């Protein structure tokens, strides 16, 4: 009797079913969110994109349609091409080093050491600090005077020969900024890897140990494959973060010395607000958005296939 009643009730509220089985999500619930997203993201983005085909200065009503001139200029602009090079170098450095350190930290605090909870908090702490504050802090650390900041520390431990003009030397400045970003964000990667590590079954490790597998073999054949979802998310986030890096550069070097730390984000900002070329700036922004989207799609496609294989 009870079973029959339950069956009847299920029939009465019969949910739409997916072709492959399971209940389809009620898409109508997403409509309010989609409307808000369209209003505050899609509409401004598409309406602003129109400026890329004009010579608008960013203020006033005067603007003329210039077709693809801004895009042609972009691909012949030494400053923009230099910024693209810097953007890619920064992204590669951040993706590789930040995730490498994040993984090592996660493995370190996933052990049974007593202070692991404190260490997790310590390593994650920089993430919750404003990037502007972190930048100003590191600008102080990078003070070029021999008796200040990092240079003073190097001198104190007998490494005075390594003192540098960390943000003023065009050959070093980009890597100084990259180090600051990595210092701040490695904890973020650590947390994601840690979440992945928490899901790796202990039984697998135990059975592998019984079979005589060492630490490296267990990491390679058990931990690393099962971390695939975490790797996907970390690589995606750090790639997008690297390609769109802005705050730390503006706060620490303003793109200088010269153009040594300019990225596509700082170029589009300067074109819009310093040079008064909003149209050209929007063209840079459009190309950057398409570039980031393309890289992300290719990356996630590859990483998903890797997850499936794992």
């Amino acid at each position, binding site marked *: 009797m009870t079973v029959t009643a339950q069956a009847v009730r299920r029939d009465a509220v019969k949910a739409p079913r997916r072709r492959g089985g399971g209940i389809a999500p009620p898409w109508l619930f997403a409509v309010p969110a989609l409307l808000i997203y369209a209003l505050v993201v899609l509409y401004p983005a598409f309406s602003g994109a129109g400026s890329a085909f004009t010579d608008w*200065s960013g203020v006033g009503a005067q603007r003329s349609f210039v077709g693809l001139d801004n895009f042609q200029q972009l691909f012949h602009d030494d400053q923009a091409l230099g910024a693209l090079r810097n953007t890619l170098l920064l992204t590669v450095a951040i993706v590789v080093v930040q995730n490498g350190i994040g993984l090592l930290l996660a493995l370190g605090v996933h052990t049974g050491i007593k202070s692991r909870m404190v260490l997790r908090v310590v390593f994650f702490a920089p993430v919750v600090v404003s990037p502007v504050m972190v930048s100003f802090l590191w600008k102080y650390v990078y003070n*070029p005077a021999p008796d200040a900041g990092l240079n003073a520390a190097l001198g104190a431990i007998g490494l005075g020969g390594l003192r540098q003009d960390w943000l003023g030397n065009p050959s070093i400045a980009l890597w100084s900024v990259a180090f600051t970003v990595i210092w701040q964000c490695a904890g973020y990667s650590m947390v994601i890897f840690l979440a992945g590590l928490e899901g790796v079954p202990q039984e697998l490790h135990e059975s592998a140990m019984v079979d005589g597998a060492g630490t490296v073999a267990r990491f390679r054949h058990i931990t690393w494959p099962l971390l695939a979802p975490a790797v996907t998310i970390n690589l995606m986030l750090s790639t997008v973060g690297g390609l769109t890096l802005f705050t730390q550069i503006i706060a620490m070097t303003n793109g200088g*010395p010269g153009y040594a730390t300019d990225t596509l984000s700082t170029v589009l900002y300067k074109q819009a607000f310093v*040079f*008064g070329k909003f149209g050209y700036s929007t063209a840079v922004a459009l190309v950057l958005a398409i570039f980031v989207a393309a890289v992300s799609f290719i990356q996630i496609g590859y990483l998903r296939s890797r997850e499936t294989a794992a």
Partner: protein
Amino acid sequence: MALERSVSRRRLLQLVGGATVTAGLAGALSACGGGNGSSSSGGPLKVIGAGSQEAGLRKALDDYKKAHSDFDFNLSFSPADQLQTALRAQLAAGNAPDLHAVYPGNGSAMSMVQLSKANLLTDLSSQSWTQKIPTGFKGAFQNDGKTFIFSPGTSVLGAIYNKKAFATAGVDVPTTWSELLSVCDKLKKKGIVPIALGAQTPWVTQLIDYALVPGTVYAKTPDFDDKMTAGSASFADSGWADAMNKYLELQKKGFFNDNPNGTTYEQATSMVGTGKAAMAVQVSAVLQAFRQASPTPDDLGMFPFPATDVAADNWIPGGVVVGIAVSAKSKKAEQAKKFIEYCGQPEVVNAWAEAVACVPLYSEGDAKVDPVLKPFLPYLKDNKAVPFMDQRWPNAEVQPTHFAVVQELLGGKSTVPAALKKMDEAYRKTA
């Protein structure tokens, strides 16, 4: 079975979602903060001034408020670099403050010519003080014959020096380039940094060129700007090359502090104030900041920075200082215009100019000029002063290009011909 317990991507997204939202929300809040920019409809008059003009503008507003009980204002200041961005963003969004800082002449995205061309400034031509603008300065205030900004006067550019440091090295103020090199050499031998240079702050990079170019370019070719406009002159084939080579000569001889590209304006200011460095090439408008950085402000003086060995060719740069203008979209434009009319009165001009160490726009009777500026007055009287170079540049790209190429030169990443070629290319771009 065990594999089913591994963390899926969806679960991972749930786990990191909280952190992502938190970080994103913090960013969004900071990005959206301070959105109270639209001020024109009610409340006090909203004013944003240039940091270098704070003392004078604040005094003028305070005095005006005392005399007008129905007047109130909300004043904030912005450093030079942020004026280009934050204020311009407000202008673009149509919520600029009623009264805001504007650079005189042309050559910057926040300059009078650029903003008046976009119909963003209120015409002030009907005010009586505009008739007293000296002819040579009209280009800084006017576009198409209409006056759009008020500025209290002209700031000169030269060396702010520490008299005690000079006395320690037993040197006097130099009047020629060779004397300057000799003075720097003696200072260096005494362990004092001859010239403090904070070239990490972009606008500081231009100052030594600006100090030298009146002597290397304009003394010989006073109509250089007109020739540039006509396309018959270029940076590369002018005395600009001489000026940049001299700039680099100072660096090669070790007359700057170590690592100027990594040193900020504030650090350089402190070096001169405390006597660690003997001088810095600066505009007189920032004298107050140097005095604040010095335990003995009276030890600071100023002298024209010599560019050549011919005393008669050593002209000085003297430009109209950052002004204020009324937003064309302000609903309190009449109130703002009345305040500017008040600022144009001779006693207010004098008081403001004195507060920011500049030479008054005009004076009736004796003008009060900061005593340290006296070495510059003969140059102004003899028409040997050239407006700051950017005020005649045709677009907003030349000046930032100048900043960048100087940093590249100081960093050893460029040459003088390559630097000037970049400036010429920026100059030839359309406004």
